[in-house]
């Protein structure tokens, strides 16, 4: 076998060469390992983390809205949802689980179809919401039966809750799901179930109330299933908004107005401009909006002639009627067109050209000075006053008292009203101004339009010593729970002679507190709480000459839509005014018979509650302050019922 020895030698040589080659290949593998695991390790570690770590946004709790004493007006409520994870239903299957659940929480076939559709659309580990806002009993029953309901689980979320429902609807507004138009690219808005404010305070302070989203770093696998949470950064909860509203007074006002078909009222602190109560009746329940309205409910709301969705305090525009007369009187006094003691003879009407302008009292008031004119609301006196000063001066004065433009209240949807001038009529209507229109404006009719809020502001400015106070609903916005009272800037003086203001104010006191005053029947007997004010009755239809001759039809004989609006603006206490109120009852009838008693009840309640009393500053959280309050909401109602 010596040939074989040669072969073996050759074989050995070749094997050594092969070993060399293989070692070269092995070195290549080792080199590659070094490259990947040492040289590039950091880069690949980052990529691996990008793979496995997913950032999830956490919705921050929405800020609360509290009243001036800290009582919650809009809060977050635990919301129990029942969810289904289809892969966990095991042998039961989605259908089986739904059947069992049906015995606890009945589900309609439509609901069931939606659920099945959603189950099919999602991956099997994604929870699908079966039902939201569960009753506590249902939650308990599901939890008890949990062992028999694999894949069914209860999830807690937060939903907006308005404890006072309808009573604060127009002030607070409501929240609902984010609309396409609102999306700005902020990822918070993309969160399922996220709500944004759609009207009222919820809308105007939406950004502060939202807070900022937290984030949760979760480890996910290649299919996106969350394995565990790695890191969590809580977001900033939304800021609490403290309002100027006194919820006790608000409830009393709402209750008082609820007897009418359509009415609104607002109460202001005449010095600070704080809106203490603001009610537009009828209202909607903002809780329903959060839940989601059905088509029928929605139609019922928008087809209601009393417009429950509209906040009539800021969006209802009415002829101010006799409530406007103070401004006409003030214009005339300021301009010297009429002296405080100057008298006008009222024979029941005034003739201008061949038109007769009637006073509300057919027989006339005889000789009246400015105080008598306001007290008895003599129309003829103001026809004459208006004729003497002219429309433009009246408008200029009214503007200084807050009419003709938005008051700047921190609430969306405020209407500016209207103060006609000659220029306005030329520009807008392309017509010349007639003097008859000046006369009509003199008694607050014709083109003049004002919102109840403007009338309340006007009243406040008339009685607070001549400061141009402006209304506000927000007291403070705070994330810490400590509400510092913001520094109130001084309101500028209107620049009206205080003597003339005193004349008007005294006349308004007499309207209520002298026997021949138009609101005498609504006087407050208690000397501590006496009020002043002015009635207004506004025609919404034209009284024809024929009707005037045969006798003006009484309101009760008219269809609701044609009845007069009843207005009243008032203040109290009469000697040192603190509260101003404006009440408008749509088609309610007479200002003295309908609106004045309401204003009386409101002002009485406001004074008894001391709604505008100063809140101790520093460290006082809202709820503590609320505890100090002797009379909470229920007792307020009792007060109203007495009155």
């Amino acid at each position, binding site marked *: 076998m010596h*040939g074989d020895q040669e072969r073996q030698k050759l074989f050995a040589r070749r094997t050594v060469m092969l*070993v060399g080659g293989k070692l070269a290949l092995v070195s290549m*593998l080792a080199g590659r390992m070094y490259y990947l695991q040492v040289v590039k390790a950091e*880069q690949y570690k980052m990529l*691996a983390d990008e793979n496995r770590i997913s950032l999830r946004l956490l919705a921050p709790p929405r800020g609360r809205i509290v009243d001036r004493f800290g009582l919650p007006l809009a809060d977050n409520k635990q919301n129990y949802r029942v969810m289904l994870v289809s892969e966990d239903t095991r042998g039961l299957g989605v259908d089986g689980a739904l059947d069992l659940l049906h015995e606890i929480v009945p589900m309609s076939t439509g609901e069931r179809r939606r659920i099945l559709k959603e189950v099919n659309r999602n991956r099997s580990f994604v929870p699908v919401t079966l039902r939201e806002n569960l009753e506590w009993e249902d939650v308990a029953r599901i939890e008890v039966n949990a062992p028999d309901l694999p894949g069914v689980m209860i999830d807690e979320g937060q939903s907006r809750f308005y404890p006072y429902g309808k009573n604060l609807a127009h002030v607070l507004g409501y929240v609902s799901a984010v609309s396409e138009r609102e999306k700005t690219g902020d990822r918070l808005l993309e969160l399922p179930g996220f709500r944004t404010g759609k009207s009222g305070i919820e809308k105007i302070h939406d950004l502060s109330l939202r807070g900022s989203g937290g984030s949760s770093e979760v480890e996910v696998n290649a299919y996106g299933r969350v394995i565990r949470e790695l890191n969590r950064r809580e977001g900033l909860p939304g800021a609490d908004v403290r309002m100027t509203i006194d919820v006790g007074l608000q409830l009393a006002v709402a209750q008082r107005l609820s007897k009418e078909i359509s009415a609104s009222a607002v109460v202001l602190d005449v010095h600070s401009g704080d809106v203490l109560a603001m009610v537009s009746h009828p209202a909607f329940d903002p809780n329903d909006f959060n839940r989601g309205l059905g088509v029928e409910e929605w139609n019922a709301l928008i087809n209601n002639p009393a417009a429950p969705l509209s906040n009539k305090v800021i969006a209802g525009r009415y002829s101010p009627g006799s409530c406007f007369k103070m401004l006409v009187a003030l214009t005339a006094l300021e301009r010297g067109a009429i002296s405080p003691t100057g008298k006008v003879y009222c024979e029941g009407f005034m003739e201008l050209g061949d038109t007769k302008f009637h006073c509300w009292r057919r027989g006339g008031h005889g000789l009246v000075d400015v105080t008598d004119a306001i007290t008895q609301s003599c129309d003829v006196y103001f026809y004459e006053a208006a004729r003497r000063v002219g429309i433009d001066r009246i408008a200029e004065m009214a503007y200084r008292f807050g009419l003709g433009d938005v008051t700047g209240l921190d609430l969306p949807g405020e209407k500016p009203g209207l103060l006609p001038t000659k220029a306005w009529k030329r520009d807008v209507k392309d017509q010349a101004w007639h003097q008859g229109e000046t006369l009509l404006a003199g008694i607050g009719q014709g083109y003049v339009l004002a919102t109840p809020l403007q009338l309340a502001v006007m009243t406040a400015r008339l009685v607070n010593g001549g400061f141009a106070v402006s209304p506000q609903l927000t007291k403070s916005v705070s994330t810490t729970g400590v509400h510092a009272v913001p520094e109130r800037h001084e309101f500028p003086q209107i620049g009206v002679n205080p003597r003339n203001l005193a004349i008007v104010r005294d006349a308004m006191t007499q309207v209520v507190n002298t026997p021949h005053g138009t609101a005498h029947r609504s006087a407050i007997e208690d000397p501590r709480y006496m009020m002043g004010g002015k009635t207004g009755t506004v025609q919404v239809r034209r009284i024809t000459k024929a009707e005037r001759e045969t006798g003006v039809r009484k309101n009760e004989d008219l269809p609701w839509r044609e009845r007069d609006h009843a207005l009243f603006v008032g203040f109290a206490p009469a000697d040192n005014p603190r509260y101003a109120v404006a009440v408008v009852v749509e088609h309610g009838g007479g200002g003295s018979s309908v609106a004045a008693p309401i204003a009386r009840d409101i002002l009485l309640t406001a004074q008894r509650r001391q709604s505008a009393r100063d809140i101790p500053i520093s460290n006082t959280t809202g709820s503590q302050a609320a505890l100090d309050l002797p009379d909470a909401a229920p007792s307020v109602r009792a007060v109203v019922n007495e009155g």
Partner: protein
Amino acid sequence: MAVREDALNPPAFTLRQKLWQMHWLFILLLAATASVGFVMLYSAAGGNLDPWASRQMMRFGVGMAVLITVAVIDIRLWLKYAYVFYLATVALLVAVEFMGEVGKGAQRWLDLGYFGLQPSELMKIALVLALARYFHGTSIEDVRRISKLFVPVMLISVPAALVLRQPDLGTAMMLAITGAVILFAAGVRIWKFVIVGLAGVAAAPIAWQFLRDYQKQRVLTFLNPETDPLGSGYHIIQSKIAFGSGGLLGKGFLQGTQSHLNFLPEMQTDFIFTMLAEEFGMVGGLALLGLYLVILIYGLAISVRCRTQFGRLVGIGVTSTFFLYVFINMAMVMGLVPVVGVPLPLISYGGTAMLTLLFGFGLLMGVWIHRDVTVGRRGLGDDA
């Protein structure tokens, strides 16, 4: 026949002696490697013996029985029936052409009722045996003649072509390379390999045309995986990420994020080395590579030590096949070569490759046991 065998070859060893002669250290190395596999499969199942580790252990047990059986069979019988075995395997390969089960887009399996048979795996052994027998009977002068190369080249190319048709590029390449290594070890002139190599490079563009779409895709993706990060490139990218993020020391046992969060595909089979590298880092990877290197060196040493050309060539053929598995798999998961679907020997989950390898190592053990037995040209008597 048994009578003749006894007459011509006085009984060299009893079965007991043969078992005693077994290279137990080598077997221990195999067991150690397989154990690394069990550990990784345990991790792949998220810290569970089921479903992979336990079954892999069973398979290893069966494979060891096969190894020992193969090892104790007289090496001359393997030589004698080498061609028969080879022809039978070629016949099986043809059979898969017509009735193979289509798995993962390739006809590779023959359904034999209880277990699937993969003739292409069997071919790796049959080719080694056939070539070893051929060169066993060829003198050193004949080997240098070009005419004598016709038969071995045919022995290699017929099965390689059949496997390529399945289509299984990885196995076809392994067959071709294993054959070439045996030819090289048998003493074929080096310049011939150079010429074939150059011819191969020149023919590559033509060969490209014959590749299946998915094979072309794999090559293209390999060249630039980022072009298709969610499609075919996904495997390579995720594997490299897992590999690299393991760093020097790894993320720790059962802590591989890429593998446990399912970013890594096929982690229990083809990409198991990636998982090991992710959990045990470069240190772990090099340790395994070292273990493989020791097995390789032992295998080559056993081959060189053998006194018969048949034994030597079988030894180097088996060892080279083993090395090819290791190299192609590791290079593949590290993005050095295209994804071709070659398992990591003794570690990847799967029965066929394990059985093939242990069968091959059985032959290597046989070579070791029978290292001093004289073997005739046709297997039995000594007619040299």
